[in-house]
């Protein structure tokens, strides 16, 4: 039942491809896409493209995770910082940062750095905002108890605030991680000489829709794998509050 919907979509696709109503260049059969997928995994240069995208996405995400969690926790515990940063993050959250990519290219160059910088910026927002709400909503009774027992600010942060905000922090990560993959692929489609986005554009420009769809499948698999790893890590670290997802 878990994959029933995927099966229905695949069947509908195959029926369309075999109907003869559309050119196979627009709707290639699943068999052709699968063959291209096998080819993809058998070529070292294709795997290298996947690695390049993964590295860019993860670099930007990791930077955003460090900066975002720090900023979110500080905002959650400091009224002054919250009043300073909250309008900035809330006010510019809806801005599509992708529009800034041409400027990023001029600042950071056309290589990986401009893409990593954009991933960082896109991932920063959900991580900061969700962490901030997690840190702000820590149970006051726990804070008072710790203070009564003589805990300092550092100990309270380490032992109370961060563990209490951890489920929110991971929720932010879970929102940001697919964003990282999406941004990397789009920026590689716009201007790149490597990566999965470039591979998809190359296939599309070569009118190889089956190859392009195989790259799309690879991107989905990478996204699924990253999410699975994140949920597993969360369940290990936040063991007192396991996620009720399809993975557990």
């Amino acid at each position: 039942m878990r994959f029933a919907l995927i099966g229905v979509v695949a069947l509908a696709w195959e029926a369309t491809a075999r109907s003869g109503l559309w050119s196979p260049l627009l709707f290639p059969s699943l068999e052709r896409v699968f063959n291209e997928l096998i080819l993809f995994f058998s070529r070292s240069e294709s795997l290298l493209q996947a690695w390049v995208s993964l590295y860019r996405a993860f670099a930007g995400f990791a930077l955003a995770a460090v900066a975002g969690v720090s900023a979110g926790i500080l905002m959650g515990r400091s009224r002054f910082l919250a009043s300073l940063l909250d309008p900035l993050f809330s006010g510019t959250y809806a801005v599509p940062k992708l529009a800034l990519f041409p400027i990023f290219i001029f600042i950071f160059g056309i290589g990986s750095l401009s893409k990593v910088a954009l991933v960082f910026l896109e991932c920063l927002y959900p991580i900061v905002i969700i962490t901030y709400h997690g840190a702000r909503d820590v149970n006051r009774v726990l804070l008072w108890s710790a203070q009564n027992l003589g805990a300092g600010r550092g100990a309270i942060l380490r032992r109370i605030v961060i563990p209490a905000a951890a489920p929110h922090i991971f929720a932010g990560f879970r929102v940001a991680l697919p964003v990282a993959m999406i941004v990397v692929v789009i920026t590689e489609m716009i201007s790149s000489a490597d990566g999965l986005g470039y591979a998809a554009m190359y296939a599309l420009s070569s009118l190889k829709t089956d190859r392009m769809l195989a790259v799309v499948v690879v991107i989905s698999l990478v996204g699924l794998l990253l999410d699975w790893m994140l949920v597993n890590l969360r369940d290990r670290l936040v063991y007192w509050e396991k996620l009720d997802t399809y993975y557990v």
Partner: protein
Amino acid sequence: MKFLSLLLVFFSFAAAAQEPPLIRFGRGFAAEEQVWLMSVRPDLTPNQGKKYQLKQILFQANPERFQAFLAGALDAGTAPGLAVIFARAQGVDMTIVASICLEAAGREYFTTAYMVKDDGPIRSTRDLKGGTIGVVGIKTATDLWARVGLLNAGLVPDRDTKVFPMGFPAMGDAVRSGKISAGTFVEPFYSAEMAKGGLRTIFTAQNSVGYDHELLNIWFGEKFLKAQPEAVRAFLADYVAVTRYYLANTAQAKSDLHKAGFVRTPLPFYLKTSDWKRTASGRVDVESLKKLSVLMLEKLQWLEKPVNVDSMVDQSYLPR
């Protein structure tokens, strides 16, 4: 009442039957002046509205144009001849019917230029080793010329020199700021950058390939060619007439295009820019396309097997 309804339906069908066939035409945004002029100056096209109707739809790139054609949203369009060869090799049923312009040698013609910083370390194409070259899109004509230029200099594209897709408007600043080592320049960007100074041409589309060759062509879907041959003939008769007008009255034609919003470059500047070679007859240089197909097969491996270019070009619809 029933009789009146039937009468209405009859007359609607009769009116529809008298309507000339509509050509849904996918156009681009550069070097297609004669084609645009057909919509801007319908007074130059006596057959338009009588033997065919024309609806021009703007596309930014070839793959989108070809996909629209495959989806049944286009009947014809413009595209580089090499892109049509490539599409035909993939099974897209389209045929080249006329030439729009060529990359040609000669002071009187413009040919796409690859430029570097004048005061930079790159003195020849060979110096691009370890650098980057900007092209407007993957597997476009600009990509082909760049790769052939690199291969001519003994460099392997992607390995020795990265080939980056980038929009024409960004090329000048990208080269000047050192973000890319060389960029592709077409009019009007070429003239604008030359006016600013500080850039130098290291090779051109014409000397990269080594001979004059087709740049842009008009293609039609084979189904439309078979279903509406008279409409295609009428369209091409008008196209040739407009091309002749354009060549004889270039300044006026450019002013009209500018006024209609087809060109955004300031008019005085647009009037001064040099132009690609355009043949008054609209006839296609098939030999140059054959040579390009061999280049795509042997030098670039863009084609999987040899193609029959003669079967991809049909000039019988052009006026004799």
